């Protein structure tokens, strides 16, 4: 990889009241790649996301995004640089209709600066994005209060919210969890399309099989430490990883 990596995490550490949530984790992510982060429950995956996206300030270590140090920056500032994330627990703006949910990111400075922001009619943009993530146009769904949507739609909505920001890096925190096989298979092409558009993606996942169909590289966490990194099969053949997983759960 000639060009400098889009994301550089070095020696990241965080403790919550004595508990080492993340310990000296460092890895790199090249532009346009899809990186998978796996690990048993409580291995600190979500904490890692929070640290990178700025929702939690790290005790130690640094995060470089596009070569710029964003450690301890306010989340919204980071997002405006083009790094955004989805949430594990789906909490849309339930009182707002689906497409209004997208009005929020469309109002962010980042979008306003860009072309689409000046494009004028935001609602139209919003609807387009929804269609892109798989809401049927003209159906009532986009106008329904987001609170009443089924989980599948919520995940798409979440992705849509990220896309509205025209990001360069999206961190997906367990988008697959809680979805049926068919829903997942319908989501996968969407993610691939994002990658085609040149968006770098970092996926936190439990559903290893689906994950491995997408990712080029995988990082494995256990108890807040990186125990392995590499291509899916390398990682899976790694002894420590086996233990880590067999020890805890048998998926994958």
């Amino acid at each position, binding site marked *: 990889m000639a060009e400098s990596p889009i994301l550089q995490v070095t020696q990241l550490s965080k403790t919550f009241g004595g508990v080492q949530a993340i310990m000296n984790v460092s890895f790199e992510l090249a532009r346009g790649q899809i990186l998978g982060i796996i690990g048993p429950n409580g291995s600190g995956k979500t904490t890692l996301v*929070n640290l990178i996206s700025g929702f*939690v300030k790290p005790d130690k270590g640094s995060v470089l995004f596009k070569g710029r140090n964003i450690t301890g920056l306010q989340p919204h500032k980071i997002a405006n640089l083009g790094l955004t994330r989805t*949430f594990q627990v789906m909490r849309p703006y339930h009182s707002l209709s689906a497409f209004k949910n997208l009005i929020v990111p469309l109002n962010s400075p980042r979008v306003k600066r860009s072309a689409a922001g000046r494009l004028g009619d935001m609602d139209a943009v919003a609807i387009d994005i929804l269609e892109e993530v798989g809401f049927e146009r003209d159906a009532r769904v986009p106008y329904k209060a987001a609170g009443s949507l089924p989980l599948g739609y919520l995940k798409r909505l979440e992705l849509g919210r990220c896309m509205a920001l025209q990001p360069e890096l999206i961190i997906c925190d367990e988008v697959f969890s809680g979805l049926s096989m068919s829903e997942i298979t319908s989501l996968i092409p969407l993610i691939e399309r994002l990658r085609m558009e040149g968006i770098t993606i970092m996926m936190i996942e439990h559903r290893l099989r689906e994950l491995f169909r997408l990712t080029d590289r995988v990082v494995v966490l256990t108890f807040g430490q990186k125990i392995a990194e590499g291509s899916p099969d390398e990682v899976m053949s790694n002894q420590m990883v086996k233990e880590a997983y067999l020890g805890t759960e048998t998926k994958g």
Partner: protein
Amino acid sequence: MEILVYGTVNSIIFALIALGFTLVYGVSRVPNFAHGSIYVLVGFLTWTFVNNLSMPYALAVLIALAVASFLGFLIYRIILIRLRGMATSEIISSFAVSLIILEGLRMQGIAGFKGFIGPFYVLKPFVDGKINLFGVFIDYQRLIIIGVGVGLVVLLSWFTHHTKTGLSLRAIAQDEQAAMMLGVNSDRMAMIAMSIGSALAGLAAVLILPLGSITAEVGYRVLIYALAVCIIGGLGSWGGAILASFVIGFAMKISTALFGALWESVVLVGTIILILLFKPSGLLGKQKELEERV
């Protein structure tokens, strides 16, 4: 010396006032704004029993406490139970209750500041007289307060660590969901908490009111104090509450000594705001730093 002794007394008074409130909040996450009114109510009842029904003092106190805890139970059973989880509604409705009680009592003539109608509402201290403690005059009532205050804290901690009810109370306080899985009925616990909390408020009243006189304003003041202590200490954290009451207790005494009494209240509220700004969850707040909640 002066400051030390009376600061301690003051602090323990705060602790007494706040214990009931923090207990209720800790267990059921219900900010019981009716706390102050129950406090005054108990004082008033005791007074009436003693002076109008000429009961023996102890009996009057007991009955008053019983009434208080039943009232607490009722408040939860009839009103709060329907509003669980909606903090705003809980605050508003329980505050409405306290207004009802206090303003109702005011019609009994407990007008307070600038004279009052009818009789003086003053409880007699248990034991009259005073002793000289390290060159500071202190009356027995205050000694009693110290004693009971300390005793109560010990008792409570024993209660919550070694009795079934107490344990389940704590379980609820720590993790409602889990506790309910383990078959602890959170509503029942909340009711118990409310009853105990109100009884505690009453007890505090019976102990402290003999030092002053029973007025409606006391109710509001007590509420503010309780809030202050609990916020500074971290809502729902007992250790915090006790620590906080010492902080405030001394802060107020000292400020009185330094700048004069008028600044007492300023100092009080000032401390609260400062603490909240630098540590939004209070000194020993259990919940995570608020902005870390994701």
